[in-house]
């Protein structure tokens, strides 16, 4: 059924451009990581982009060296503390509501206007990550809305859609969402025990099927031949606490060390993000 509240365009469905790969020489250089395995990409964080909101922040993760690979661009606004809707029951603490949405032009595939399950999923993980950082009982009977627009997803334009990279892209997106939301919350003046930041680590197989997998931080799916597993971690550095851990992939239970090293690398990535976050916040108040 057509959405009468929007301009819907032609009645017939349109097709995203199909590229003629036959005539062009193979563009894809062998997949190589442009950074050492322990290095995250450069990050740019700024608060106060939405002056009409209580707090806001903008995060951009550097475009990697490979041309055509876009970096992540996120814009976050925080509204609140505000009164809860009249229908809401009494709450002795602040009620957190998170909303993550890709812009229609954020990814290779044009996104719809309604949130899809993956976006809802991101929202839920983000809420879990932030709930552990906020001192919720300082604000009784109130709510706060955290809204993130993913202006540009972390996706490779060149790779075809069939690779199933979406899952790993979501990890990177969540890591960015957590960091940008923490900056916006601090800008809004909502009490937090610590600055929470997100970090991603992955187990990748770079040289063929039989090679030994390695753990890298801040993975870009297009830079690796195959990603076996990845985890996104929300970590509080001063408290040394993990508020949210999201693991996806395929890891044998026999090798518990692999799992721990994945988590440790995730924490390391999160610490890197935290340094940027703290630096940005310090700049804000100066």
């Amino acid at each position: 059924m057509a959405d009468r509240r929007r301009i819907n365009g032609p009645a017939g469905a349109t097709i995203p451009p199909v590229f003629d790969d036959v005539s062009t020489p193979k563009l894809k250089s062998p997949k190589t990581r442009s950074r050492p395995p322990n290095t995250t990409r450069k990050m740019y964080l700024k608060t106060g982009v939405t002056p009409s909101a209580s707090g806001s922040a903008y995060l951009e993760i550097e475009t990697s060296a490979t041309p055509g690979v876009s970096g992540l661009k996120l814009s976050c606004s925080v509204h609140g503390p505000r009164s809860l809707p009249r229908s809401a029951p009494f709450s002795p603490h602040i009620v957190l509501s998170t909303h993550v949405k890709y812009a229609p032009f954020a990814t290779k595939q044009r996104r719809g206007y309604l949130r899809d399950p993956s976006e809802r999923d991101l929202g839920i993980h983000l809420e879990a990550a932030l709930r552990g950082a906020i001192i919720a009982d300082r604000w009784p009977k109130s709510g706060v809305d955290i809204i993130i627009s993913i202006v540009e997803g972390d996706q490779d334009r060149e790779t075809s859609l069939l690779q199933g990279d979406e899952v790993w892209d979501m990890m990177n997106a969540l890591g960015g969402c957590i960091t940008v939301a923490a900056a916006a919350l601090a800008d809004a003046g909502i009490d937090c025990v610590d600055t929470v930041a997100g970090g991603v680590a992955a187990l990748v197989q770079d040289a063929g099927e039989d090679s030994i997998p390695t753990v890298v931080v801040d993975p870009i799916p297009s830079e690796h031949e195959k990603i076996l597993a990845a985890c996104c971690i929300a970590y509080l550095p001063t408290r040394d606490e993990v508020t949210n851990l999201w693991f996806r992939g395929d890891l044998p239970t026999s090798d518990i060390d692999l799992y721990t090293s994945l988590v440790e690398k995730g924490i390391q990535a999160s610490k890197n993000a935290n340094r940027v976050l703290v630096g940005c916040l310090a700049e804000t108040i100066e």
Partner: protein
Amino acid sequence: MTTTTTTTAPPTLAVPGQLLGPASRYQPGPGTHLHNANLYASLLGHVHITQPAQQPQQRQRAPGPAKRLTKITPAPAPAPTPPAELPTISVAVAEVRSSRVPAAGAGAGAAVASGGGGGERKKREVLPEVGNVVLCRVVRITPRQAVVAILVCGDSVLEAEWQGLIRVQDVRATEKDRVRIYESFRPGDVVRAEVISLGDQANYYLSTTRNELGVVLAVSEAGNTMQPVSWKEFRDPETGAMELRKVAQPQPQ
């Protein structure tokens, strides 16, 4: 962070989670929290250290004639501080940043100091608390209560609108049974009131029993801003019509 900074001074700027000092040296103030016997910042902002006052600070009350005790109240807590008085450490956002003051001066005889606006950095949002004096606008009235939107709490303008209720028994201190809401408030009036309870899930309960509380700004039925003439009447300067209100006693400036 294992550095046990017992001797170093606290930082001047703090981000959430930053160590401010041990709890044995400071009292936690706004924007801080206590964890493992250490004080940490919970907000982004400047660190302020307030030395304890000589006598325990009481909640700031507007000066007014001491009232007869009409109800039993718990004695003011004798300074919730530990015996050895510690300075209070707090974190707060710097208030005004790059404020652009427009040229308009205060109008002659105007009730306002105009100016401000522009790129003023908003203060951190506060919540109304019991005992705060707030300014609110009457949204609707019923015979039992007036529903108001709280706009200003203390000195700070609230970003969000919080709903409040002034029940008929909280309008004035005397002759409570003779109070009529429609003779006290009209929708659109700006009322100064005190928060008496956090109320139910949606509303704060407010009271205007004190003399200096009540309607401060009212517009007549003809649409003119009225002037208070007595404790229960406003007058329209153009039409001369009188309207009943619970008038706030003008405060000496």
